């Protein structure tokens, strides 16, 4: 077993590393764009317009109450079908699905962050003559962002693991590389142990970094 593991690392090391690269790329894209969508959707859910509330609520609930794998399938088949001219790669379709998914979860993170800011903060800003969008951008969001930073990082950790579902479509992430290597070597357990260790090290490190960040933020207050 140990000999097999060492052989695998020696022979397929770069393949595993490449898989990790794709996994992190998927996670980063999902979280970065998901953040923007999340902030927007959170504002839509909290604004006065009933129509925007409804759109935002339906989006969040549909995403949160259906499986990610189903969403991946959905975008994977839907996007090339409705936008054939764009010639979207399967990687792009998967990214879109992941972005929409993390956007919904991020919007909940942001919503709780925005709601955690005392109403008096907005009232003070509005009383000085700031518009509602200036108040949001200058007063509420900067404070909310700080409050939700740890939750955002946790979301990043979660999505890093969830990208493994994208391997269903062979996009080249860690789990895809597992399937490739396992197919070539007829080994099932050993490559699984290796990618398991990689997933663990990466997410464990990220969780610890989040904990440090959280402590730093508290000290700053």
């Amino acid at each position, binding site marked *: 077993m140990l000999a097999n593991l060492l052989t695998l690392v020696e022979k397929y090391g770069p393949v595993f590393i490449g898989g990790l690269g794709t996994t992190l790329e998927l996670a980063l894209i999902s979280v970065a764009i998901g953040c923007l969508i999340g902030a927007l959707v959170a504002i839509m859910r909290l604004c006065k317009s009933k129509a925007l509330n409804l759109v935002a609520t339906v989006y969040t609930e549909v995403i949160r109450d259906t499986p990610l794998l189903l969403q991946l399938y959905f975008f994977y088949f839907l996007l090339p079908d409705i936008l054939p001219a764009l010639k979207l790669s399967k990687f792009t379709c998967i990214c879109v699905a992941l972005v929409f998914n993390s956007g919904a979860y991020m919007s909940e993170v942001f919503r709780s962050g925005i709601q955690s800011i005392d109403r008096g*903060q907005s009232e003070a800003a*509005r009383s000085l003559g700031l518009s509602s969008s200036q108040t949001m951008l200058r007063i509420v969001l900067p404070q909310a962002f700080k409050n939700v930073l740890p939750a955002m990082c946790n979301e990043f950790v979660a999505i890093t693991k969830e990208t493994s579902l994208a391997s269903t479509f062979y996009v080249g992430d860690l789990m895809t590389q597992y399937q490739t290597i396992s197919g070539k070597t007829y080994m099932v357990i050993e490559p699984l142990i290796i990618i398991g260790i990689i997933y663990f090290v990466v997410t464990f490190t990220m969780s610890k970094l989040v904990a440090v960040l959280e402590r730093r933020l508290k000290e700053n207050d």
Partner: protein
Amino acid sequence: MTDAFDLKDAPELIRVEDLHKDFGSLKVLAGINETIRKGEVVSIIGPSGSGKSTFLRCLNRLEEPTSGHIWFDGADIADRSVDIDRHRQKMGMVFQHFNIFPHMSVLENITLAPTLLGKMSRDEAVAKAEALLSRVGLLDKRDIKPTRLSGGQKQRLAIVRALAMEPEVMLFDEPTSALDPEMVGEVLSVIKGLAQNKMTCVIVTHEMGFAREVCNRVLFMDGGVICEQGAPGELFDHPRHPRTQDFLSKVL
């Protein structure tokens, strides 16, 4: 203090007509008619739940009036089609809980609105802020985060933050109610300084001694209306309305 009589002919700054505010079936304001003249220092007193804070917050529309008119700056600002942000720039407000922006330095708290709203250049705003800070004895705190200030210091900062916009009137919503007793004086003396400089002030307060000393008119509210009003000496020493008498007998 300023004699109430020289202010009778001062120009009107805010005129409130038949102001109503309902929260659901609860009628918090039940028809308020009142005129605030330039240079007046008016305090609003009354039992809790009488609508005094709601009245004050309707003046800059932090609460939307249910009906009625508020004439200020040549417009009926109770009308929802007016650009309320523009009018709010001319009405400073100070809150019970200070509502200082904790993510900005003391100086940035003050310069934010004047620079963002294009009222002053950055340099002008900083100069103005420094002058105001030194007036309230906080100049040495200009670069620190306000979370490290005491309650009294926060409230003084809140006052100069509002003053930096050079408002025509200052609205105070129980400015000393959240303060430790030993800090009440420092805040009241800043407000007193404003009053002496002829800044128009409307102050919701429980500090009867302060109202008597600094204000030239006191409004007593109960049940969503102004029950009685007058010069402080008159209202405090010879209240006519039974509800005013009852209230004053409890608090004085």
